[in-house]
């Protein structure tokens, strides 16, 4: 077993990473050890990243132990860069986290300074000079190449930077040149934030943490009004709203609300929010209080301003939208569905049920197969998924069954129509899929069924199987 991480005291005492545990124990008898758990580390880092949302919406993970915050445009909220950095250090150390950080003009340089220097706020004017003074390790290239550079007598980043690029790339690979370009800001590597940047966001920072839920609600109300005022100026409404609650102890709770139509007022939002709060598995707990409450329109959409007409249909459509939103929030979006046609002949795939909050009705669509006027229904009202196997007795091998047994009841067929042959979609299915011959049957009691035979008599080696797929009215 080897050491994977050390605290400050251990590092000072001369222990190092990759050192064997037995060696370390030999030096220090009562060494305090904990087993490494990359999963728990990652979870903690995620939590910290959530917490860092208070500084900027653009937070990205940087390796297994770092966070990258894009603070462009957020600094003035905290005074200046120095104050922002101090705030991060102070708050995180309160939570028992040791932080090293750097603020620079580009992400790669910030990464290098945070890890390989004491870290600081580095102005753009001083950036290149300071970069040149960094040790070669900061390049974070492969050990072989690093050793190669050292053997050539190079010590700092500056030493390497002055060398001709072509020669460097030829000798040490393109990786080194890329690294240099990134550090000096010649190549731009965008960070990938963990969360979608909201279209519009409002927040309230409290001097004293809020504990009483009533006051939380008041704050939310004020935030909602502000959010919708801002959205209204852009003629937009929110399709997805996220309320974030930052607790003083570092917990961040997020509650997301999706709506089928753009929300434009606080009242509707609150109704949905209340509905959501009642269905939460673990209730919203203020604990020691919230110090930041934020409301963000994650997805916004243009609203169509409609004149309140004398005709009540507009209002009724609105009400239906509200109902769909409420049901979706209570039961889950995957349970409130609208059918949409899919261009396929395979019956069970011909309908796709999509969350009603994500779709809008009123687009005229064609449903296959088209029914001819005056003809009886060709498709059942209820479809079994999966189809249920039945035992049949056929009059002639290739024809409709004369009788069949389904759920232990025998049905004697008096009327039959078919076959309607539906071939498998070879471009989609595995090789074993078989052609289906569908029949519409009616038994002597008047029950109408939709059954199919899987496979063809003339081709298959085994006897084809029969299934009941649906019930007609």
């Amino acid at each position: 077993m080897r050491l994977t991480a050390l605290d400050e005291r251990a590092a000072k005492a001369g222990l190092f990473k990759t050192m064997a545990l037995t060696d370390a124990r030999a030096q220090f008898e009562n060494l305090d050890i904990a087993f490494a758990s990359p999963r728990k580390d990652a979870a903690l880092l995620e939590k910290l990243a959530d917490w860092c949302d208070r500084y900027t919406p653009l937070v990205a993970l940087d390796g297994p132990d770092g966070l990258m915050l894009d603070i462009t445009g957020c600094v003035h909220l905290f005074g200046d860069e120095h104050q922002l950095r101090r705030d991060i250090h102070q708050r995180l150390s309160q939570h028992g986290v040791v932080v090293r950080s750097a603020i620079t003009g580009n992400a790669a340089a910030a990464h290098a300074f945070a890890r390989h220097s004491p870290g600081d706020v580095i102005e753009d004017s001083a950036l290149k000079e300071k970069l040149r003074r960094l040790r070669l390790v900061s390049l974070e290239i492969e050990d072989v190449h690093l050793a190669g550079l050292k053997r050539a007598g190079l010590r700092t980043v500056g030493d390497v930077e002055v060398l001709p690029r072509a020669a460097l790339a030829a000798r040490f690979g393109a990786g080194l040149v890329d690294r240099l370009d990134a550090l000096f800001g010649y190549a731009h590597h965008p960070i990938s934030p963990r969360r979608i940047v909201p279209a519009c966001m409002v927040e309230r920072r409290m001097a004293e943490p809020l504990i009483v839920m009533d006051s939380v609600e008041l704050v939310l109300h004020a935030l909602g009004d502000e959010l919708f005022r801002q959205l209204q100026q852009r003629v937009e409404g929110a399709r997805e709203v996220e309320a974030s609650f930052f607790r003083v102890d570092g917990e961040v709770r997020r509650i997301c609300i999706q709506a089928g139509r753009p929300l434009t007022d606080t009242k509707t939002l609150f109704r949905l929010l209340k509905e959501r709060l009642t269905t939460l598995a673990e209730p919203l707990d203020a604990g020691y209080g919230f110090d930041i409450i934020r409301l963000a329109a994650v997805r916004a959409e243009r609203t169509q301003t409609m004149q309140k007409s004398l005709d009540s249909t507009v209002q009724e459509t609105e009400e239906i939208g509200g109902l769909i939103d409420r049901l979706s929030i209570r039961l889950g979006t995957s349970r409130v569905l609208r059918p949409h046609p899919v261009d396929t002949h395979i019956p069970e795939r011909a309908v796709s049920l999509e969350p009603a909050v994500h779709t809008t009705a009123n687009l005229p669509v064609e449903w296959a197969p088209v029914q001819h006027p005056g003809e009886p229904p060709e498709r059942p009202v209820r479809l079994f998924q999966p189809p249920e196997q039945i035992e049949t007795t056929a009059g002639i091998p290739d024809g409709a069954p004369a009788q069949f047994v389904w759920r232990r009841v025998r049905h004697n067929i008096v009327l039959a129509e078919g076959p309607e042959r539906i071939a498998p979609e070879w471009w989609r299915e595995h090789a074993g899929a078989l052609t289906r011959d569908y029949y519409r049957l009616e038994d002597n009691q008047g029950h109408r069924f939709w059954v199919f035979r899987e496979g063809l008599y003339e081709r298959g080696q085994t006897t084809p199987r029969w299934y009941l797929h649906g019930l007609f009215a």
Partner: protein
Amino acid sequence: MVTTVDLTALRRDIASLSERNALEAQAPRSAFGFGDRSIDRVLGKGLQRGALHEVFSAEMHDAGAATGFVIALALRSSSARSPLIWLEEDFAAQEHGFPYAPGLKHLGLDPQRLVIVRCSSPQDVLKAASDSLGIRGTGAVIIAPWSNPKCLDLTATRKLLLTAQQTGVPAFLLRLGAVPIDNSAVTRWMIRSNASRSSGASAPGHPVFDATLIRNRQGMTGHWILQWESDNHVFRQIEPVSGAVVSTPAHRPPQTRKSATG
């Protein structure tokens, strides 16, 4: 520039508007018929629109017929483009098949109108039902819990009925795998499949229901053989096919009480 206003045209427009409004007001929003004179005569003005109607499938194999009958009633009772909310308990769908949009289309229902709500428990079904009934824009609500859940009692159905009466939204309780017990439904139907008129070449024809009105708080009960015509959304009473077996349950006597027509 002088704007000339054609006063007579304007007057005509206004007159036509108010005429239409008057027509709409006259149209009985409070009831809906079957489209067949003989039944509508028996039921008086038809069935009450803002009310709770209960439809049972007589046996397991009649689930398709009961579903079709409910869809037909929903189509008769709602305006052409209004949304239809179908609340179905998961178990009912697993046991009797899932609502299938292309088939509903063939019954005359535009699937675009449909909102299917899948509920994992009968409580969810009832809660969603009372929400849906409370919205005036809803065309009709189909409530399909499975079997006889405890929560579907007199109080629960009474609440649904009151909400439906307030908003005028028709509510249909589709009872699959259930037996009738007393509740607040205004009408109660027992539906079984019946032999269809073959559309030629021994192919099954239009849906035919054997419909027994076993309870009607507002009038007569009765028994009819009805064919649903999906093209023009009407029921048509037909004579039983001679020789075809109209099944009579062995364990239940045929309804005779206040029966209006054979």
